């Protein structure tokens, strides 16, 4: 075991982590722990863009952006946070440009902007050009630019270090425990401030746009330390994933004029969202697609998908604006998007919920109090600016705005306080976890349990949910958790033991899937990304509040989930019926 001391430790080197690191490195001694080389983070997969009311091509202002965000989130958004985000969006984009990000440009040389789902002018009148982009590689450019600036500022990275535990002592943050992939060694990082920026958790679904590595590690280990998780039932299903594979085809494709069609060639979104049509928000489009499929208007021999049609767009436009996704269609489907529509289906995409924080990025331990020295930002966190459904482009915005805020706040905090002493045997829990897996004599396979988990989640907890399907999922997960106790791994070595870590990650997925399902079961209404067929309307009287899920550990070591609720912060916008 090795012990390291840093003022600030950042967990994760995606967009949020690196944005925080750029700030905190300049003010405090900072280490960034990441289980992947920074440029492998899934921020690089983001395609479409990052919204800010720059008004470079059309009249726009951040107040409209705030409204769209609140409405998109089906009024579960904390409006104070949304205001901050939309206001600071403009500087966030300009900051990135000054760091060197190669945005696509207008004729006049300004940052170009395109349309995106749910982003409108003047409170819903018509679609507006608000998304700043770099072809369909916006996330790639953000990730690269942030990495480049980390190099510039000499940020200290610990690559391929898996953080597996959070240390809290005397009620304050005292550090994290990490596992070094290369050697199998356990490292304790004592820190005054810890920022979690470890990304999403989509891997508990089968058809997902998320990377193999998005296993919700941060959420899970914070949760196991008794801290709450907020709004975990809200998971976004992106309408246009490549059929069966889930690889994302950006909403920017529809922003550029792409159209969704059913097997009759009909532009069916006209029926579901007369104004915004194909650019309605994601939950609306995903449900529309599934309705088409269920009502027998799906495409293909099994009628289980619909088409994203780009064939009417000029090839030059596709080459200039959507080069990557057209290549995906060619590589993975073998079809030519110039002339063929692309088979698509909704794909599990984004966790609206996560570790609850306030607008400074400080982690809440209940509805009001924070854990001193603990911060979270990015997809792992829930501020909550996305409410029940995130608008496209608002996540890249979120990671930049709140990544920066968390980095600044953490550095400011760690330069004023002393180290909190490490608890006795700080690495005990992690040591027990990895030893247990290495020495396990069980017979269950990680891959098999994960597969079954993904299958039950896809069938029972996806776009359409009912009490019955959620109960089914809950039972399945309980059985899988039981089996997980007897899971065995084949690789007993110390060097690059990815077998071991896949098992650890599966443990995280199981815990989080359980939280998702339990929270969803309790929310007897339909709102944003959470749609209950048995409760198809929004219930603002009972459920206009955030779910807070806590892990309760009984004396015999068994765990259960306790749900609590937290009020939504409403400033300007009262809930209205949501129509696109």
């Amino acid at each position, binding site marked *: 075991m*090795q*012990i*390291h*001391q840093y003022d600030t430790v950042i967990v994760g080197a995606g967009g949020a982590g690196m944005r925080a690191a750029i700030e905190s490195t300049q003010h405090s001694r900072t*280490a960034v722990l990441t289980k992947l080389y920074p440029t492998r983070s899934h921020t690089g997969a983001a395609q479409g863009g990052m919204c800010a009311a720059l008004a470079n091509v059309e009249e726009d202002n951040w107040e409209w952006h705030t409204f769209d965000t609140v409405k998109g989130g089906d009024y579960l958004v904390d409006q104070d946070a949304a205001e901050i985000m939309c206001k600071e969006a403009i500087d966030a984009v300009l900051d990135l440009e000054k760091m060197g990000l190669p945005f696509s440009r207008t004729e006049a040389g300004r940052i170009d902007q395109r349309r995106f789902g749910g982003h409108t002018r003047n409170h819903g009148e018509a679609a507006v050009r608000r998304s700043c982009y770099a072809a369909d590689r916006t996330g790639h450019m953000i990730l690269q630019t942030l990495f480049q600036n980390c190099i510039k500022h000499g940020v*200290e*990275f*610990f*690559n391929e270090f898996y953080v597996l535990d959070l240390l809290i*002592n005397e009620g304050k943050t005292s550090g994290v425990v990490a596992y*070094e992939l*290369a*050697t199998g*060694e356990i*490292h304790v990082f*004592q820190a005054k401030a810890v920022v979690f920026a470890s990304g999403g958790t989509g891997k508990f679904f089968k058809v997902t746009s998320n990377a193999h590595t998005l296993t919700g590690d941060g959420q899970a280990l914070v949760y196991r330390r008794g801290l709450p998780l907020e709004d975990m039932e809200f998971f976004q299903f992106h309408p246009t994933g490549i059929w069966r594979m889930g690889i994302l085809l950006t909403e920017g494709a529809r922003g550029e004029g792409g159209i969704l069609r059913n097997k009759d060639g009909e532009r069916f979104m006209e029926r579901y969202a007369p104004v915004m049509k194909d650019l309605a928000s994601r939950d609306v489009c995903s449900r529309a697609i599934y309705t088409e499929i269920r009502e027998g208007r799906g495409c293909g021999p099994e009628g289980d998908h619909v088409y994203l049609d780009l064939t009417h767009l000029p090839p030059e436009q596709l080459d200039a604006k959507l080069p990557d996704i057209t290549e995906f269609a060619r590589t993975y489907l073998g079809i030519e998007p110039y002339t063929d529509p692309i088979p698509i289906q909704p794909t599990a995409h984004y966790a609206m919920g996560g570790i609850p924080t306030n607008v400074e990025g400080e982690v809440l331990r209940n509805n009001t109090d924070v854990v001193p020295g603990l911060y979270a930002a990015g997809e792992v966190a829930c501020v909550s600016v996305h409410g029940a459904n995130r608008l496209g482009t608002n996540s890249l915005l979120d990671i930049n705005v709140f990544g920066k805020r968390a980095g600044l706040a953490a550095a400011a905090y760690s330069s004023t306080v002393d180290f909190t*002493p*490490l*608890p*006795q*045997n*700080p690495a005990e829990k992690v040591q027990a976890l990895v030893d247990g897996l290495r020495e396990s004599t069980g017979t269950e396979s990680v891959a098999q349990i994960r597969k079954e988990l993904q299958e039950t989640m896809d069938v029972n907890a996806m776009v359409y949910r009912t009490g019955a399907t959620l109960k089914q999922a809950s039972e399945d997960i309980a059985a899988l958790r039981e089996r997980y106790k007897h899971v065995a791994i084949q690789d007993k070595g*110390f*060097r690059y033991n990815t077998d071991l870590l896949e098992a650890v990650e599966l443990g995280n997925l199981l815990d989080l899937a359980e939280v998702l399902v339990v929270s969803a079961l309790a929310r007897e209404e339909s709102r944003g990304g959470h749609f209950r067929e048995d409760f198809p309307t929004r219930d603002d009287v009972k459920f206009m509040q955030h779910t807070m899920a806590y892990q309760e550990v009984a004396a015999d070591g068994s765990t259960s989930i306790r749900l609590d609720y937290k009020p939504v912060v409403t400033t300007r916008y009262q809930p209205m019926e949501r129509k696109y």
Partner: protein
Amino acid sequence: MSTDTTGIELVASSQAHTGKGLGTGNPADEFVIQPPRARTRTTPRRTRTNFEMLAWLFMRLSGVVLVVLILGHLLIMLVLDGGVSKINFAFVAGRWASPFWQGWDLLMLWLAMLHGANGMRTVINDYAEKDSTRLWLKTLMGAATVFTVLLGTLVIFTFDPNI
């Protein structure tokens, strides 16, 4: 209840992967399949001169000129009237009587040897693994080149058809 960190050696630097294995003391590290030569802190050595660029340019410029010189040479020697069969002392004497052919051959000799030597330098740099081997090979090659160039020049200038 807390761990006292005062007695513990704190590790501050990030991984020291330098291609020399993981440096963890794990016996398995000895068996890491090494790259041919590990990039280290002291390499690459900054040169801060334009030597490599000039050498690169020289390879191309000399190449273009050599095409004319050598292909012309080959044409005359091997192809035109009778090929190798015609070559003998008298033939050489006949050619070198003209300063034009003297100049041609002199230029060809110098350019070809310098071009070749520089090319060989690249090849040696690429394949010699140890610095000392490199130095030896390059010295040897350099000496051979200088000798050959001087000898050739001498022969062309001091050639005496009536020997």
